[in-house]
């Protein structure tokens, strides 16, 4: 009977340990780029709307997650090969894709929803987004675009292939708990406020007010947005990559005098405010105040429009040192196994 050579096993263990170590070394030469990526929010883009026609204004609506509507400007220019993901990143946001498909599916923007954030979706009140596979239809980032002064259009193309409109808008709205398969629309209208200054970052804006105030509007009901904007039968059910965008071009919203234009008035009437959290929005891991997360309720609530990036809860805080410690544990286990095998085979 062949006694098993322990060397084979020890070798296999060592090979696996090496295979694990490989990526760590891979990281070392990319570590500085990672670092810059992490710190890019401080440098990339600028707060508020773009002031010229070369930039792309990026709107990220975190209101479904209990955050602000963040408006930032990617200074552009939009050349060929520039994608929605680029615009999002150049405006200063961090973007996470899924593990299986990379950035073909945007899973987190600015770290939200965080891995430890409970999302109330139909069928699972404590869903945690792990960004392994395609996010569910009831908790995903909806991707919209619009020309300046136009309408939000649900993108039929993935953000990693769609080219933003120069001077236009890119909109990201987190769609939470909509069981009818519709997608949330960004909470501000896609119109640049002339050449005036960007909106004061702390102003409170009722995101739904425009629906009732802006006169020339065919779809009166369409703006607690998105519930009807992409027709609910349309396959807006998937995050970006699906085909067949709902043709929202019909709605004549182009008249454009929007409330976002000149510095908006703080309205006292918008009461479902979430408690103010100061300027920096969320501490990591604050669960969205679930109640408002379902249906259209989220958009009924006023959300603050801000130009400041909220802290990203998922900014990889850990260092390479912690990874090396983990690697040390693995190597120790491998050595232990090898030693055990050696002792068993050399027993007198």
């Amino acid at each position, binding site marked *: 009977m*062949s006694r098993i050579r322990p060397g084979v096993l020890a070798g296999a263990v060592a090979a696996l340990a090496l295979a*694990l170590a490989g990526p760590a070394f891979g990281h070392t030469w990319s570590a500085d*780029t990672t670092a810059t990526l992490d710190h890019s929010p401080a440098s990339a883009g600028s707060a508020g709307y773009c002031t010229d026609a070369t930039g792309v204004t990026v709107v990220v609506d975190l209101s479904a997650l209990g955050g602000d509507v963040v408006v930032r400007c990617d200074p552009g220019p939009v050349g060929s090969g520039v994608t929605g993901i680029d615009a999002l990143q150049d405006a200063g946001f961090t973007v996470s894709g899924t*593990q299986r498909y990379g950035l073909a599916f945007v899973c987190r923007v600015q770290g939200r929803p965080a891995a430890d954030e409970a999302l109330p979706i139909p069928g699972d009140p404590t869903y*945690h987004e792990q960004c392994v596979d395609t996010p569910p239809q009831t908790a995903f980032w909806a991707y919209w675009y619009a020309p300046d002064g136009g309408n939000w259009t649900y993108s039929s193309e993935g953000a990693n292939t769609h080219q933003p409109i120069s001077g236009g808008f890119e909109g990201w709205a987190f769609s939470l708990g909509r069981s009818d398969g519709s997608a949330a629309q960004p909470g501000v209208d896609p119109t640049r406020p002339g050449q005036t200054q960007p909106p004061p970052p702390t102003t409170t804006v009722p995101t739904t007010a425009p629906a009732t105030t802006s006169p020339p509007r065919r779809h009166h009901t369409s703006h607690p947005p998105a519930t009807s904007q992409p027709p609910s039968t349309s396959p807006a059910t998937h995050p970006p990559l699906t085909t067949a965008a709902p043709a929202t071009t019909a709605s004549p919203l182009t008249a454009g005098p929007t409330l976002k234009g000149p510095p908006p008035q703080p309205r006292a009437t918008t009461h479902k405010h979430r408690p103010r959290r100061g300027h920096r929005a969320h501490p990591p891991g604050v669960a969205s105040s679930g109640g408002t997360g379902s249906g259209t309720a989220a958009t009924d609530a006023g959300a603050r429009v801000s130009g400041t990036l909220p802290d990203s809860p998922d900014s990889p805080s850990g260092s390479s040192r912690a990874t090396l410690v*983990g690697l040390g544990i*693995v190597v120790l*286990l491998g050595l232990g*196994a090898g030693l055990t095998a050696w002792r068993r085979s050399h027993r007198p």
Partner: protein
Amino acid sequence: MATLAPPLTGPAGRGRRPGASRLPRALHPLCWWLWALGLTVAASRTTNPLLLGVVLGVVCWVVVARRTDAPWASAFRLYVVAGVVVVVLRVMVRVVFGGDQGTHVLVAVPAIPLPSSVGIQLFGDVTAESLLGGLYDGLRLATMLIGLGAANALANPRRLLRSMPPALHEVSTAVVVALSVFPQLAESIVRVTRARKLRPGADPNRVAAMRAVVIPVLEDALDRSLLLASSMDSRGYGRSGDRSRRTTRVVGTLLVVGLAGICVGAYAVLDASTPRYLAGPVLVAGICIGVLGIRLSGQGVRRSAYRPDRWRAAELVTAGSGLATGLLLFASARVDPTNLYPSLTPLGWPQLSVLPVLAILVGLIPAVATPPPVTVEVGPR
């Protein structure tokens, strides 16, 4: 049949540890399966390469510490090889089909454009993101594979068959035969290759050597199967007693439907993206139907066992440690899920959390807390 007590070796004989519990003995095979399944479940809940590495280390340690010289034990390294192949294949697939994903380019490779209707492209820049994506994914699968290999290496399949409840014999016979085919083939390959090497004038031609190995191995496997079948036949396996044909059919249907339900339900429980109504209800229904089938089937069968395996402290510790690992990691997916799935975009260093690591290290207990295995003294030293 290494289990049937040829000369024994082991530290217990020299009184290194007092107490009769350290006498070498084989553990109940079911406890090894429970332990390995617990670790496999743990591995299925994460793609963190560090955590998976800890699982691998624990599994390998316990296997090298507690396996016997039996043929099925020597198959473990084949599972390890299969795991390495899985990882390599996954990474290769990412290189071929997953180019241009991510920003950290390691090797610049031109892409081969395909018509956009195909929806994919060949090659493209090899990025750290896509390589690591393949590695994380493949490592998880490899770890689960090696976990099952550990169960096969540690548990004696024949004793496993014996310790099944009598009513399950009809199903478990097939399962055990299927499970033991791979280890038996592996052992045959090792034996035939060694015999071929010992023969003078071995043919250096690889293809001819292949033929010289494959045919004896297949013949060997067939012989063993027939041997196993006849020995099982002589022990009364596959005998349905004096049941009517109708009862047999009903029992068979119940067992198969129950097993299918358990499979679907277990899959849905483990895979978070499956609809929830497939998880609990189907699992419970499958278990109920299966138990009903077992009860019906057990009525007609009576068997006795010679020296039945008993559950003693070491067995309970082993099974408990594996189950604890699985449950703790299952729980940590709810409590502290931050580091279970390390982010690739943006690229970040995989981190370890304390709870999952401790949970997995619990699985190491059998390496020290169980009695040493029964081994055969091989030749003079």
